[in-house]
């Protein structure tokens, strides 16, 4: 007898380009990427196409925001290549958080990583905007009033 690992594995397999969650739908789960990667896409305000917000990889989580704020999905997530995803029922997690609040720590770490990444992007975009403004109007004051910095 020759042993091999049989095919079945945990989670759901998505083909490349397949939608995992859609912007605007109700949120019942958060997700963990077991294998592969996914693209986070948001419909642009003008309605012309979608913007790629970022790409998540193995062991990353997504969909957790909607689980906590009870709002609809803020983005569409699609498989980028063959991907295996585990869904985690929102009620299971919320119930477990009441029993063991420390379980939130790993979720918060993922959210913190994302906030840091967003902070850097915001700063980069502001710098680019400032540079563009100063190039377009070199005679005007280059100081730009900035709102409060993104939170730490």
């Amino acid at each position, binding site marked *: *007898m*020759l042993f091999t*690992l049989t095919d*079945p594995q945990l989670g759901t397999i998505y083909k490349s380009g397949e939608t995992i969650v859609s912007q605007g739908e109700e949120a019942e789960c958060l997700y963990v990427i077991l294998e592969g990667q996914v693209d986070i896409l948001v419909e642009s305000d003008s309605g012309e196409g979608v913007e790629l917000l970022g790409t998540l990889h193995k062991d990353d989580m997504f969909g957790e925001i909607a689980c906590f704020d009870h709002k609809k999905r803020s983005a569409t997530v699609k498989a980028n290549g063959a991907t295996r995803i*585990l869904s985690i029922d929102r009620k*299971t997690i919320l119930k*477990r958080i009441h029993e063991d609040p420390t379980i939130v720590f790993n979720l918060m770490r993922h959210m913190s990583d994302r906030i840091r990444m967003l902070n850097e992007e915001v700063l980069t975009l502001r710098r680019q905007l400032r540079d563009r403004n100063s190039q377009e109007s070199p005679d005007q004051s280059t100081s730009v009033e900035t709102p409060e910095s993104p939170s730490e």
Partner: protein
Amino acid sequence: MELNDNARIAVVGGGPAGSLSAFFLQSLAERVGLTLKVDVYEPRAFYKTGPSGCNMCGGIISESLIELLATEGLQIPSSVVIDTIDTYTLHTDDGHVRIRSRLDEMRIASIFRGGGPRGADHQLPLPWDSFDWFLLQQACKRGARHIPERVKALSINEQGLPTVHTKGMEPSAYDFLIGAIGLGGPSLKMFEKMGFGYEQPETTKAFVAELYYGDQEVKHRLNQAMHVFLLTIPGLKFAALIPKGHYATLIILGEITMDLIQRVLASPVVKRIFPPGWEIPVQPCQCHPRITIGAGKTLVADRIAMIGDCAVSRLYKDGIGAAYRLSKPLALTAITHGVSKESLAQHYLPQCDRMDRDNRIGHTLFNMDTLFRSIGPMRRGMLETVRQEQAQAGGHQHLSAALWDTFTGSSSYQDILFRLLHPTVLARLTIKSALSLFRKPQQE
């Protein structure tokens, strides 16, 4: 008795309870900026095949545990997952019914606790990894030290510190000693002899056998379902066949005797799941492990705590999940409140007591099931109720969910009881049971 920087912790036993305790101790310590030296004493090489590497259980990782471990950042790798389950098939003397997962996804894993069944090592390296070895390695990645030595004795030294004695090392004193020794006889006696009042829990025996089918027959016969047999055989709590790659794991729970085992194997209901012409191999990899059905006494003392099967575990199901649910509170208590008897009693023991109380509800549920199973109309009523629920896509499936959670170990027995007491379930069961008096039993 707080754990300060460089505090030393000994975990005796490197199964799931011990490994997860070490893992969470290191993880939580890192979060609060504490350095701990955690030693896990485990002489077994879990990657070995046969009894020497095995911790002897059915090898199911429940749906809820998969979710919780994933949330903790502990993904079970593909090489450890031998097979996956998305359906439970309940078999009774009057027919069977399939209960599908509520989410259309593979969410329950079957694993080998050790390196695999005896005899599998004719092919090395094996394509799979041991679950227990994986967990122990996760603890080591967090900084725990695996000491592959058998603990020969335990004592308390002059400073009041628990001391571990092994054959190959000098006696080592620790600030905290965790007993995660399972139900192995000599190790249990060591803790009982320490004199703090520990007594091992009440146990019963199970029967576990790894039956070689070949992966094609496993796929064909078991079809990614766990098959649970609720038969009217005296002394049988339940039996189950679990798909595991090239093997089907047979578990029998009840008053284990050779007679009971042979009656289960000879049952036409069970034989239908075997490949045609297939006979039980002579001496398959099999064992009669003891399983915990009660709670041990005096589980904590100053600088000492017991955890896992030697303390309290979930009744009949999800022992690995029980290890997770207690190892984290134990680690949290030790780090945030200290390791005195008072701290452990105040913050860790209530979790053990909660599990024990839930197990008492579990005992009642299983006893009720044994009773109802013996009554034909009730048995048929249960089958019909579940069939009706499964046929109604998207409807409330209270009985299906209760049975699913019972046999997956995904919910507490208290939650399962509340589902069973739902008025819809009681009404449907009553009506279907009454109607079955006038109808022939139907096969699905």
